[in-house]
């Protein structure tokens, strides 16, 4: 009771003096252990088939390759789109501004799953309508991997446009003026002064979006037969009548993936922050 009260009142880690018994860290470790015991209990109670899991883990786990291809591909498309989108939003040109606003509004306003289906299922239909020139066919009829990358890139590019825009806008006008006063061109100013500083603001949420995309790439596996994690879990789970086990494998692998990339994201974040925090220079 005393502990509960202290935690509520103390916001975060309670002070040492208050804990007569175990340290905060110990109590946390024990809590995690308790959660693990409960979960294992549940698995045993429901006769979780670990042998089956071991057997299928390698096959389902290899789906990671496609998950990563989709996610890296999607990100490779989303980043330039977001940069163009942001520069369009910030441009004084009415045309560029409208295009960018339309793009953001449409792709944020419709579900990613619908976009994947559009590109993979609906576009091919257009290719064979009368009067549509043949050279459009390879553009409209896409392999599921390309369709998936396109949909993920377009969708996340729209979300990230806003991230990039606010990152660029967070750089004070004094920086731009200083660069102009040094005779730097607008392009040089953007590339050498504004964007490097904006990156510091842009990278953390972009990392979050990449991690979200890892998980959203499963939607591509719903639409078509790309054998990424979820698709493999789903198809083998159905065929072997063990969906709980196969989905658990997929969930664990997604979880591990996000853990790994969160770790890298934190490292990257610290790297780009140099020059902005005194501690960084001191090396504390």
């Amino acid at each position, binding site marked *: 009771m005393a502990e509960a009260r202290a935690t509520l009142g103390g916001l975060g880690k309670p002070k040492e003096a208050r804990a007569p018994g175990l340290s905060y860290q110990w109590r946390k470790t024990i809590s995690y252990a308790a959660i693990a015991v409960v979960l294992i209990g549940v698995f045993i109670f429901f006769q979780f088939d670990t042998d089956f899991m071991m057997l299928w883990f390698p096959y389902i786990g290899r789906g990671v390759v496609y998950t990563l291809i989709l996610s890296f591909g999607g990100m490779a498309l989303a980043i330039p789109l977001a940069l163009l989108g942001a520069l369009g939003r910030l441009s004084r040109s009415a045309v560029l501004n409208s295009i960018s606003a339309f793009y953001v509004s449409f792709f944020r306003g419709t579900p990613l799953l619908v976009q994947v289906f559009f590109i993979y299922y609906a576009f091919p239909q257009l290719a064979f309508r009368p009067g549509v020139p043949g050279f459009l066919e390879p553009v409209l009829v896409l392999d599921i991997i390309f369709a998936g990358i396109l949909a993920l890139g377009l969708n996340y590019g729209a979300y990230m446009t806003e991230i990039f825009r606010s990152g660029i806008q967070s750089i004070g006008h*004094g*920086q731009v*003026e*200083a*660069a*102009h*006063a*040094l*005779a*730097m*061109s607008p392009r*040089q100013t953007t590339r*050498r*002064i504004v964007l*490097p*500083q904006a990156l*510091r603001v842009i990278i953390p949420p972009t990392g979050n979006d990449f991690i979200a995309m890892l998980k959203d790439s499963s939607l591509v596996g719903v639409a078509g037969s790309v054998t990424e994690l979820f698709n493999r879990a789903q198809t083998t789970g159905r065929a072997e009548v063990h969906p709980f086990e196969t989905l658990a494998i997929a969930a664990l692998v997604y979880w591990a993936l996000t853990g790994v990339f969160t770790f890298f994201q934190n490292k990257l974040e610290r790297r780009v922050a*140099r*020059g*902005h*925090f*005194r501690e960084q*220079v001191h090396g504390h």
Partner: protein
Amino acid sequence: MATDIIKVENLEKHFGELQVLKDVSLNVKPKEVVVIFGRSGSGKSTLLRCLNFLEYPTGGCIEVDGTRLEYGHPTRARRDAIRQIRMKAGMVFQEFNLFPHLTVMENLIEAPVTVRGESKKEATERGKELLDKVGLSEKADQYPIRLSGGQKQRVAIARALNMRPKIMLFDEPTSALDPELIGEVLAVMKKLAEEGMTMMVVSHEMGFAREVADRMCFFDDGVILEEGPPDQMIRDAQHERTKRFLEAVL
């Protein structure tokens, strides 16, 4: 006497309905130090910012070291001229505006390398001399956040000088500084004036003006109301408004 290095002819600047500069004309000779003072909103900073086209004049003409530019829409030729003028006119801002993501030395060599196309080595060599001149040699590899306000402003001066400008524009260079840090910046500016740099300084540091300036201009409501040598201006201003302003700041 040598020909004027800065010529301002009938300069006008409107911000919408508001006219900030009203037909301002001013010539500056090489090596001359001109201190501009006046109330905030009188147009003195705008004049400086029009000189290197951080603000676009809405009337009149500017000439810096032979590069002449009439007001008007930014065409290609005009943009080239603006670039020429900006290379000839170094500017120091009230808020320093150092690039926080670059070290002190990187701040100094950024523009010489990207704009002038100098080698890093060449720009760094000169940068070292300039840091030495402003007394900050040991800070070359620091990021700006580690510097005091006075140190930042001295770096900003060195950064502008590393473009080898013909003239230097100072826009209230000490207004954002704690009082005890003003002296170190003014000392650097004084040294620069003694070396023969042409300078236009917007400032209310009357001690500096008296000691260093060749001429003072009192700005009032978008016009140069009065100008003259510092001693005469400070002791014996002609206009009532100048006198009142001087009484307030002295």
